[in-house]
């Protein structure tokens, strides 16, 4: 996560429209990258920063809706805003069901697009933050030994040391050592914090 500044990705086969969208979003300070086709985008794009996608629905080759499907399959959290010259209801419905943020008809209101972009970027950032936290917990969990995991499970379940020792058929002393190690490795300050970060992941 070297660059966290948000990025607007534009995919449209019409160069003028592509460039004009970029021109609009850069006017409010976003970074912007343009692609002439869905194929070019998929080949080039790295999911390494908060971003949102502004895409035309109809394009030669892979259409916008297909691209949306591909992104969903790859479980990327990229928010998609569709712009289209010829909106028809069934297409909009399909797009929205596929998880699109919005379906805008050209020529669109600039504020509307920018609002949607901002929302999408915020959503992207949030998704990315959650994902990062989860990844951290996983890393920490991976450092635990099997016995420490058992102890962690008991601790999160709210059991006292004595009860844990009895359940696991180990000494209280040993439980205490494990518990200390778990708190240490999970970098948790309290049992409450530990329980929140681990959640239902065990």
């Amino acid at each position: 996560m070297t660059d966290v500044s948000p990025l607007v990705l534009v995919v449209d086969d019409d160069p003028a429209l592509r460039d004009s969208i970029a021109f609009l979003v850069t006017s409010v300070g976003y970074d912007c990258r343009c692609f002439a086709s869905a194929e070019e985008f998929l080949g080039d794009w790295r999911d390494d920063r908060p971003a949102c996608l502004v895409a035309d629905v109809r394009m030669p080759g892979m259409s916008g809706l297909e691209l949306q499907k591909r992104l969903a399959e790859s479980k990327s959290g990229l928010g998609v805003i569709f712009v289209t010259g010829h909106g028809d209801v069934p297409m909009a419905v399909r797009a929205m069901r596929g998880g699109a943020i919005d379906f805008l008809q050209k020529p669109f209101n600039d504020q509307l697009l920018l609002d949607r972009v901002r929302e999408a970027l915020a959503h992207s950032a949030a998704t990315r933050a959650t994902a990062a936290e989860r990844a951290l917990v996983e890393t920490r969990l991976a450092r635990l030994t099997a016995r420490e995991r058992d102890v962690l499970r008991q601790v999160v379940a709210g059991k006292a040391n004595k009860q844990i020792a009895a359940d696991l058929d180990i000494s209280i002393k040993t439980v205490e050592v494990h518990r200390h190690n778990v708190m240490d490795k999970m970098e948790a300050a309290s049992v409450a914090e530990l329980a929140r970060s681990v959640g239902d992941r065990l």
Partner: protein
Amino acid sequence: MAVSGFVLVIMSVLRSSRFFLGRLFPGLLFLAALSWSTFAHGADVREIRVGVLAYRGADRATDSWTGTFTHLNRALPQWHFTMAAGDLAFLDTEAAAGRLDFIITNPGHYVELETAYGASRIATVESIGGPPPAAAVAATVFIRADQAGIKDIADLRGRTLAAVSPETFGFRQAWREMSEQGVDPFADSSKLRFVGFPADNVVEAVRRGDADAGIVRACLIESMAAEGRVQTGEFRVLAAQSLPTPGCQISTRLYPDWPFAKLAGTSDALAKQVAQALLSMPAGADGQSWTVPVDYHSVHDLYRILKLGPYQALARRGLSDLLWQYRHWLALFGLGFLWWVIHVLRVQVLVRRRTEELRAANETARQHREELDHAGRLSLVGEMASGLAHEINQPLAAIANYAKGCLRRLESRGEPEQIVHGLQQIAAQAERGGDIVRRMRDFVRKRPVDIKLVRMEQVIEEAIMLFTPVARRKQVELRLTPCPHLPAVQADPVQMEEVVLNLLQNAVDAVESSDRRQIELSAAAGPAGLTLSVCDSGPGISPASIDHLFEPFFTTKPQGLGLGLSLCRSIVESHGGRLWTENRAEGGAVFHVFLPAAKEPFR
């Protein structure tokens, strides 16, 4: 009567014109010859008038025929014979008035009187010791002896001729001979001189060289030689034959001597008695007597050949007679001709009218064609409308984005270069939109067909520009195979664009429900022209449709008018080209358009 006496035929003895002798003759000379017999027989004696042709004046005539009149009055005392001497005109007038009972005249005049006044000969004069009365009269054609160029009568063509007058029997005899030699004195002589009486004038004219040849009565030269007025050997006679008695050279055949003829009103009894008296008349001192009338057929022949006198009608009325004889055929022919003229006129009028109608029909047809063409283009644009609307929407959307981007940059005091870029783009996009509108308008506008030298590359490019958004909207991949070095064609560019667009639209419609949506436009130059092909990846053409594909109002599309392909074919064919279709082996259909190359290439 000597031959020389009556070879001179028609004349005005006194002065007179050369042609109309009678007019100038000083009236009739009425001579009451032998008046003594009038007194002898008293008032109850009936007068018998005998006309006499006086060719040397009344006195000479009287002298010539005195013996005859004396004999008649003596032999037939119950009548009193008087002599009415005069020229041809005088005699004709008297005969016409019925004032003559008998007439003595030359053979030519007699033949004319036969027809005109029913004259009929009762005796022919005879000269004792002279030629036979059936062959006594002839004429002489002579030249100067030193004239080397003329050998025969046939040589007279183009020469100058001299004669007394055209009405003398001598001239007519010579005329006949010339005519039989193929010489027409009136047409073939360089000059025909009628010198008038006396006939000596003719000899003088030839002697002086005023004329190359002269025509006179037989024996004139000889008598002038006898009188010493002509030297022996001075003249030479053409086609000379000798008349044994009295020894003259003549150039013509011989004709009978003068007749004594009764006129129509004279009774046969009188005529019989007069004839008997004449035949019984003894020869006088001049050797003159009368014999039975001879045959005047030869004179008739002459008049018939020359179409004179009684045979004038042959010359004058020949054509009208012929016309009358063939009047039925002529009427038929005239009717036929009239029918033909009417037919020709009618045909002309009809042709003109039909031509006018055809022109009007052509004009109407042309207008209809243009209307249909226009309707076809409107319909095509209608089919393309959503694509075209999108194409106009694109620059509008871009303009809106650039404008808002500029505003935001201005508000946030953004970089001026950025704002300039945005404004430039706004201008460019406005132009782009305008271009599309212009193209559409050019395509749809109603206008007359304008055939000119056209580059098909340009037509294809224009069509592709209009059609790309249409294909994109339908998510059809439109491929254009580069087609270099196409020959120029003579065509209406808008109609050509219409053809290309129709084929593209047709291809797009064909692939709309296919998985693979691909159409391809290609063109290739051939020896005679170029072939443009539009392939599609659709289902191909069903066998049921393939025969009706180019018929107007045949369509397989729910919203189609069925005009496109039929219009395309009529446009292509009106440009001398061909439009055909086939299914491709790899699937889909292909439409080919062949257009002949223009005669003159681009300069």
